[in-house]
């Protein structure tokens, strides 16, 4: 009996990614509740939401949407939602990085370019929705798809560069690390889109590149939210007690 290594690798990577996402969503939600500062709480919320959307996209990959017809549009929606969420989160993060920069520098002109880039992204999404019911696109439609693809990769690469440079300029060391990790996570998506474009879906190189970048990207998003606060470990010798008294020694009960 031969083992289909491609399928096994695919499933194993998917399970690991989904596990990271589930833990990440749970922990990000708990951190959101714990933070008092709105900037930190907002980052935890965005991270939880982003990981939820990634999870939906991964699950949607296993739903057999038709290749043509109006129902194929539904198959494109999760990925479009993911692109929009990544862009919105990257935008918020870039602005936070600028606000925490001592000199409030407009990193790579993001404040001027954010709306035009958002429009480019929406235009791609509209093109994707419009062309997804087409089973065999003609030359013009194919050219539109390729142009839209290049535009999206460009927008994401621009967002990545803004995040990485903006993070380095932030005066808040914690936010700096978190934003930098998010920038690197977005860069893995760019890498994934570019590297898998010429590959044939279902082949070993495709699975390695696709799942490898997904795994790294998801882990970077998880690290991005976890880096918002160092986590302590409870010392068992002074840890919480089962009595509900918290182990307090007061003059009355010592």
């Amino acid at each position, binding site marked *: 009996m031969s083992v289909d290594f491609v399928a096994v690798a695919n499933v194993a990577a998917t399970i690991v990614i989904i596990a990271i996402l589930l*833990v990440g969503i*749970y*922990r990000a939600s*708990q*951190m959101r509740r*714990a*933070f*008092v*500062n*709105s*900037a*930190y*709480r907002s980052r935890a919320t965005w991270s939880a939401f982003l990981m939820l959307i990634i999870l939906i996209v991964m699950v949607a990959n296993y739903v057999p949407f038709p290749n043509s017809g109006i129902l194929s549009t539904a198959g494109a929606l999760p990925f479009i939602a993911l692109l929009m969420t990544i862009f919105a989160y990257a935008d918020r993060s870039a602005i936070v990085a600028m606000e925490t920069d001592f000199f409030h520098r407009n990193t790579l002109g993001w404040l001027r370019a954010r709306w035009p880039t958002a429009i480019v992204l929406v235009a791609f999404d509209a093109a994707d929705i419009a062309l997804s019911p087409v089973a065999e696109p003609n030359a013009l439609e194919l050219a539109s798809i390729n142009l839209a693809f290049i535009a999206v990769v460009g927008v994401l690469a621009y967002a990545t560069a803004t995040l990485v440079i903006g993070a380095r300029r932030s005066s*808040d*060391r*914690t936010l700096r690390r978190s934003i930098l990790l998010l920038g690197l996570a977005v860069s893995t998506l760019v890498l994934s889109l570019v590297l898998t474009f010429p590959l044939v879906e279902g082949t070993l190189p495709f699975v390695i590149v696709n799942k490898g970048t997904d795994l790294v990207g998801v882990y970077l998003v998880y690290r991005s939210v976890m880096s*918002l*606060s*160092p*986590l*302590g*470990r*409870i010392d068992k010798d*002074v*840890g*919480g*007690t*089962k009595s*509900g*008294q*918290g*182990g*307090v*020694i*007061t*003059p009355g009960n*010592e």
Partner: protein
Amino acid sequence: MRLVSTGVPSLDSLLGSDGYPDKSAILVVGPPGIGKEALGYWFVRSGLIQGDYCLYATHRPVSDVLRDMKGVGVGTDRVPEWIASSGSAVKCDLRDSTAISFNIKEAIHRNKGRRVRVATDVLSPLLVLNPLESMYAYWSQLLADIKQQDSVIFALAEDGMHPQNVLTTMEQIFDGVIEMRLYEEGLAITPLFRVRKMLGLPPLHGYFRFSVTNTGMEVVPHVS
């Protein structure tokens, strides 16, 4: 030993019914965003209600601090005297640590005879901008001068902003050290509070769960 209310009733009872020891310096250590400032706001608010002289020395603008206070449910009908980066009569310039120390001591001297509460968030920025040796001497002298009067000083330190040896060194010159941090228990993450030391009190073992909302702050024993 006289005690000074922390402004958080559940924390007062945890510390032995009345709060921080008088003539003491309290350091609150924790990562950013966790709510250390809220503890300072409630401390100052409690002093204002009791008629104490309260001073808030901050590297932030007064408007930012007031907005934060409202966010955690601290009323701003009574406000302390400010030494702030903007919005106050006396400016806080982090490049001039001598002026910050002088202004704090001068304000306290003007209120001789009253009980004094000082809350400040300038410790961490000053530690970043100056050598540890000079800051150790600076804070030792400042705290000693302040404690000569009927006063309590409450300082915040950002965890993660300094190497561990810097924080450990600074903790030595404070009479009380409170740690606020997120802890992991399995997959769960819980905000916990720990009193590492407190002048005149026996060691407080254990962890305490805290929550900061827009109506107040609550500290309860943590059951693991």
